[in-house]
């Protein structure tokens, strides 16, 4: 019942298989970069990647050919501009074509909440007049049985695996994260399996405001990976590395430079620790 406290390499090997639906979440905060890079390192392919904001984390995975489908709502480099690898996949099919299931943030949220709640769909007021439903069968409309209001509905998302990053786990395997808590509780409870990387394993949690707690029995694996959300941030641990986001714009612009960077930093390193050493040097 209690989650296995294990190393990241083993956790990814145990839980991620080609063809799976995988959600790697963290809304602007606590983005699990270390876990995503381990998936790249293991040469995973054919994944359906799920995430509100693909961000640099999925730009790397898509560029390395991990994914053939993307379920998302906003695919930019926040504060910087385009995700060049995502664009190259959609515009030119490089390194492979990428099927899109594109919704809005609100629709992704209700799809996660429905998934976490055991409901097959979520309803929202939205999409009236938008062209998105015409391109996505996961968005439909229905009439309220009471008021006859026209509402949008979207199908629940229940991934095979959710991966999130948290500040802390305790030794019993309970997980706690705080600050901007985003969508992590919903996606963790929606998924069939949950892998959590954490900044540290502690004896006991301190009282924090605005907290999400996942009891140990809802989590499958916990891996201690300090800095594992970098270049995003971990509230009370480290701040966002804005320069890395800006630099990514240049690194990712050409296929060659991107591949070279990934080869040197990710494929040639054995762990996130080694990756970080190469980043700093």
């Amino acid at each position: 019942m209690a989650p296995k406290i294990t190393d990241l390499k083993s956790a990814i090997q145990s839980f991620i298989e080609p063809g799976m639906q995988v959600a790697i979440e963290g809304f602007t905060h606590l983005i699990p970069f270390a876990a995503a890079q381990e998936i790249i390192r293991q040469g995973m392919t054919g994944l359906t990647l799920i995430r509100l904001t693909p961000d640099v984390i999925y730009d790397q995975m898509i560029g390395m050919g991990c994914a053939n489908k993307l379920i998302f709502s906003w695919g930019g480099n926040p504060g910087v501009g385009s995700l060049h690898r995502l664009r190259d996949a959609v515009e030119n099919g490089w390194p492979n074509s990428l099927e899109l299931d594109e919704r809005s943030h609100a629709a992704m949220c209700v799809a996660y909440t429905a998934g976490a709640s055991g409901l097959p769909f979520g309803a929202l007021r939205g999409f009236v007049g938008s062209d998105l439903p015409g391109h996505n069968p996961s968005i439909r409309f229905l009439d309220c049985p009471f008021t006859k209001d026209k509402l949008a509905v979207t199908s629940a998302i229940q991934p095979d695996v959710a991966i999130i990053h948290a500040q802390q786990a305790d030794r019993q395997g309970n997980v706690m994260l705080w600050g901007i808590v985003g969508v992590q509780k919903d996606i963790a409870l929606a998924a069939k399996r949950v892998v959590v990387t954490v900044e540290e394993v502690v004896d006991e949690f301190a009282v924090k405001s605005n907290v999400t707690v996942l009891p140990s029995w809802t989590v499958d694996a916990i891996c201690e990976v300090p800095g594992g959300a970098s270049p995003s941030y971990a509230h009370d641990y480290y701040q966002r590395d804005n320069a890395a986001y800006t630099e990514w714009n240049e690194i990712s612009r050409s296929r060659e430079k991107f591949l070279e960077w990934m080869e040197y930093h990710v494929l040639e390193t054995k762990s996130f620790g080694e990756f970080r050493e190469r980043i700093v040097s």
Partner: protein
Amino acid sequence: MKEASSQEIMTVTAARLLRDGTVCFVGIGIPSMAANLARLTHAPNVVLIYESGTIGAKPSVLPLSIGDGELAETADTVVSTPEIFTHWLQSGRVEVGFLGAAQVDKFANLNSTVIGSYDSPKVRLPGAGGAPEIAALAKETLIIIEHDKRKLVDRVDFVTSAGYFRGGNERSDAGLSGGPSAVITDLVVLEPDSVSKELVVTKIHAGVTKEQVRDSTGWEIRFANNLSQTESPSEEELVTLRDLIRRTKEARRKLS
């Protein structure tokens, strides 16, 4: 003091449209800059909601991403992202939605999805994010966009977020209230005609000519009868804005 740039005029003009105490859903970039400028000048009690879950954020520098830690630390409360969309936006609590886009058309529809066709796009843009529901559910929407022929177009390539559809009563007939009340560019302010809902120029920034506006707009732009000149930024507004930008740059340099 250095004269106001066209971008500064745009930001100050947008900021002025926010009344004190207004509940405002803010996107990142110039919307966030304008909203925070309003908070630091005439609207100290404006309530800023970011989709990352922070309600009543009072950042001292501008967030680069929508979920910077300072937003959480200065907020009255922080909730989950699903709750932001259900309990705070969809419930009708947001008075003003502040949006940007890649394209806006004659009837204030917004495109942030693709240039070209959806299935084989010329340019794949980031996508909807929170915009479709903000545009549908805020009591009023303000749009900020650079004035450019390719951005202010007759018809957007893709309607990500509905404005007034194809004009007239189409929006309200579809069951949506609210709608865009102004589009603020670096040249002018546009507002929807009360009947046709076509965007017309109601204010023109100092030093900008009608010719220039016509040349930069993708449809045959009309000027309101009561066209006036945009009030210039005050010294306080400019100083506050430049201070905010300077503090933001310094903070980011320190982090890098």
